[in-house]
């Protein structure tokens, strides 16, 4: 099935709210992140520093997108949910099996704290023309993602520029 350009562009402005993440922000995952990035910032290791600066533990701001990524296994769920579901729905609709992130922009607002459960709202901002890069032939698209905690506070706004493509034979 081939979509017309008009049908493709009708995705612009489409909005999707993903269900709350499968896990709440938690200290073990924060430690794992610090381990992976060899981050010695005492804000995340020394409780007295966290109490003084942030009135208790927070997650490193760049962990924002971690909390909305679904678990790979949940009892009773037929197939794993995809994070950034709108991106994967767009890939499928356009028949472009591969996808990479080209640009990621994040504005950080209220810090995420252990116990917070994150919900994201995604919106397609732009879909580019067909083009060929060294990876293959496809399109760029831009998706804005707003993350909120259980109180409705905005935690951050992310923008992803993706390239969805098919490898050239």
């Amino acid at each position, binding site marked *: 099935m081939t979509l017309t350009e008009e049908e493709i562009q009708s995705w612009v402005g489409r909005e999707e709210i993903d269900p709350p993440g499968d896990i709440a922000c938690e200290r073990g*995952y924060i430690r*794992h*992140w610090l*381990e*992976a*990035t*060899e*981050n*010695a*910032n*005492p*804000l995340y290791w020394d409780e007295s*520093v966290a109490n003084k*600066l*942030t009135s208790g533990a*927070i997650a*490193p*701001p*760049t*962990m924002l*997108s*971690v909390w909305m*990524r679904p678990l*790979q296994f949940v009892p009773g769920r037929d197939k794993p949910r995809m*994070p950034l579901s709108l991106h994967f729905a767009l890939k499928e609709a356009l028949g472009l099996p*591969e996808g*990479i*992130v*080209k*640009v*990621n*922009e*994040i*504005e*950080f*607002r*209220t*810090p995420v704290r252990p116990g917070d459960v994150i919900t994201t709202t995604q919106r397609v901002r732009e879909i580019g023309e067909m083009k060929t890069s060294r*990876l*293959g032939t496809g399109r760029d698209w831009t998706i804005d993602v707003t993350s909120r905690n259980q109180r409705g506070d905005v935690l951050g706004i992310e923008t*992803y520029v993706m390239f969805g493509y098919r*490898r050239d034979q």
Partner: protein
Amino acid sequence: MKAGDALPPLKKRVTARMVIMGASSSRDWQPQHHDHHWAVERAGARDIFLNTPNQAGWIERYLTDWTGPRGRLGKLKFRMRRPICDGDTVVFDGTVTGVKTDDTGCMWADVDITLRVDGERATECTARIAVPERDDDNPWARDGERWTP
């Protein structure tokens, strides 16, 4: 702190463990970040490569190594021009491009950061980070109209 200041460079040898731990800690199970065959045969990369949130995490760590714990990241934008793969040696460098204090008294440093592999730019980043101008200012205590990254 002033425009033109350079951040100390950071050099890291990328290993499979670093790539996979980065993917695991960001809960990103896209196969190009843990499966060598997929990365090469499906994604067309040289090997498994660092994922997006993990790169953001390394950039944040690079910045806060420089600012200390009071540094609070406001904005980050990065473009990944080529993958950073298992086996690569990545070098981070950063330059302050501007320092200004906003109407609320928050001091911001704008920093350009580049991650290079074999001298070639792999990831280019611009960041805005709040750094306290005075000892009694704590950027983390700011919110609402007093936090305008």
